[in-house]
């Protein structure tokens, strides 16, 4: 029995003491004890095996919040009126084990901004091979951003909202198709490559209307390297985009997305940055965007600062047309914190100041509608948006 204590000499001594003083009389019925222990072991092992083959896992997430702006410029659709619905959502995710390495994943999300209609956000089958590769097919999140997979899971993010400059120009989230990923684990680091292909047909809000968005022949590749402290990511994707609206914004236009991401997290310091470029033929705006976030954890509180920037690169394509309102130039600065109130609930507060719109609407809906209504003088040059938000995961 002393082998147990091999690595801790001090306890070998304690054990010696215990053996010497207490356990000598017990030696006689050792075999009985072993029998008992073996029985106990058997029954426990059985219990463990049963529980390790859990067939269904259920998880969920919830967010609610309050947003208010100092004017009606419309940053993230926030206005001078209080708004509880846009940040509110409820999600349920279940994973059904179909076999040792195969499962079905389902994610249902109800959003306050959609009158709480429940939508199947994810629904895919996944098979993991023992060599580190994985195949998925079904409805999945378009993996364009570093935080695409946690896009709606506020609890998983440091911010009150993902930086609009980078996360907003793509108005759709999930596609139907397939992907294949390969992960190579090196000592102290890991590399993952993922190729994906599919089709997307969804609705999005544009200039106060609901327009249809169709992306055909989506193909793309992501690559990720991490040493669990630093993470670098690259993504390239292309598709043919048809975007509705009156007049239609695009018909089968060649579209490309490029992105670079960087993050650092040592448990205290937090750094995140992404640089993205969208190029779409025709009227839809080609934009370059970037953000950088720096945060520092002090026990349960993580204050952060974010600076972000977006600028359209093809304003000449819309010159003299009503779609000029899609031109965008904007910088935004955010100051906020995340407070982990209990182990599953985080409270966040954020102040974002957006400015530098130049001659554009800043890509903000309130400004765009003012210009379309023939009131370009009603545009706001800057906006301040205040957000308090509660996120939970369970």
């Amino acid at each position, binding site marked *: 029995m002393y082998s*147990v204590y091999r*690595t801790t000499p001090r306890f070998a001594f304690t054990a010696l003491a215990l053996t010497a003083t207490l356990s000598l009389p017990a030696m006689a019925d050792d075999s009985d004890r072993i029998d008992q222990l073996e029985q106990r072991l058997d029954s426990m092992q059985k219990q463990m095996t049963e529980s390790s083959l859990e067939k269904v896992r259920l998880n969920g997430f919830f967010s609610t919040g309050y947003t208010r702006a100092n004017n009606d410029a419309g940053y993230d659709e926030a206005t001078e009126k209080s708004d509880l619905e846009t940040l509110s959502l409820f999600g349920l995710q279940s994973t059904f084990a179909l076999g040792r390495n195969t499962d079905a994943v389902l994610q249902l999300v109800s959003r306050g901004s959609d009158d709480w209609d429940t939508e199947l956000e994810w629904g895919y089958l996944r098979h993991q091979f023992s060599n580190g590769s994985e195949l998925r097919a079904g409805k999945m999140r378009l993996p364009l951003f570093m935080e695409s997979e946690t896009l709606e*899971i506020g609890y998983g993010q440091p911010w009150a909202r993902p930086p609009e400059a980078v996360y907003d120009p793509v108005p759709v989230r999930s596609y139907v198709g397939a992907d294949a990923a390969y992960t190579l684990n090196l000592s102290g680091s890991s590399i993952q490559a993922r190729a994906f292909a599919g089709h997307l047909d969804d609705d999005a809000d544009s200039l106060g209307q609901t327009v249809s968005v169709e992306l055909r022949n989506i193909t793309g590749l992501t690559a990720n390297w991490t040493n669990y402290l630093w993470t670098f990511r690259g993504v390239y994707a292309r598709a043919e985009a048809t975007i509705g609206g009156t007049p239609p914004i695009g018909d089968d236009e060649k579209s490309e997305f490029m992105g670079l991401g960087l993050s650092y997290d040592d448990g205290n310091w937090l750094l995140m940055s992404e640089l993205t470029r969208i190029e779409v033929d025709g009227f839809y705006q080609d934009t370059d965007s970037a953000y950088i976030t720096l945060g520092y954890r002090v026990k349960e509180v993580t204050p952060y600062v974010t600076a972000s920037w977006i600028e359209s690169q093809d304003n000449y394509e819309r010159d003299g047309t009503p779609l000029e309102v899609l031109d965008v130039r904007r910088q935004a600065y955010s100051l906020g914190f995340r407070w982990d109130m209990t182990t599953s609930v985080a409270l966040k507060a954020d102040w974002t100041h957006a400015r530098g719109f130049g001659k554009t609407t800043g890509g903000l809906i309130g400004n765009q509608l003012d210009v379309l209504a023939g009131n370009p003088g009603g545009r706001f040059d800057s906006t301040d948006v205040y957000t308090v938000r509660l996120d939970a*995961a369970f």
Partner: protein
Amino acid sequence: MAIRRAPVHALLIALCLFSSALHAELVIIGHHGGPDTITVQQVKDIYLNRSSRMPDDQRVVAFQLPAGNSMRDEFNKLVTERNDAWLKSFWSRQVLTGKGHPPREVSSANGMKSVVSSTLGSIGYLDSTLVDDSVKVLLAPEP
């Protein structure tokens, strides 16, 4: 000689018992069928979802004590170097993106001993004063 040595031993033993009762140390424990030792980095990799295997290549089953347990705090300080808030957020990201599941939570030290002793490929941690021969001590992380 022997007569003189005995009381000294008794004193040392008493001191040892006393000091270990006061200074409970964290130890990493495993199943008897597993490896004999493990490094802090290997334990950290397992508990932060970077590795799914024990040093002897067995598929690992990791266990943890509940939040608020002093050994869990010690484990987070010495091994994962992350606080509970970080870990909770990290694991909910892992779970909701299909990358893995957190170590199973065992409600008590006794429970920890029984599950680790009865699960092949298991790893767990415990207050050193509560260890018995049903489990194997793999490492005592140094502060």
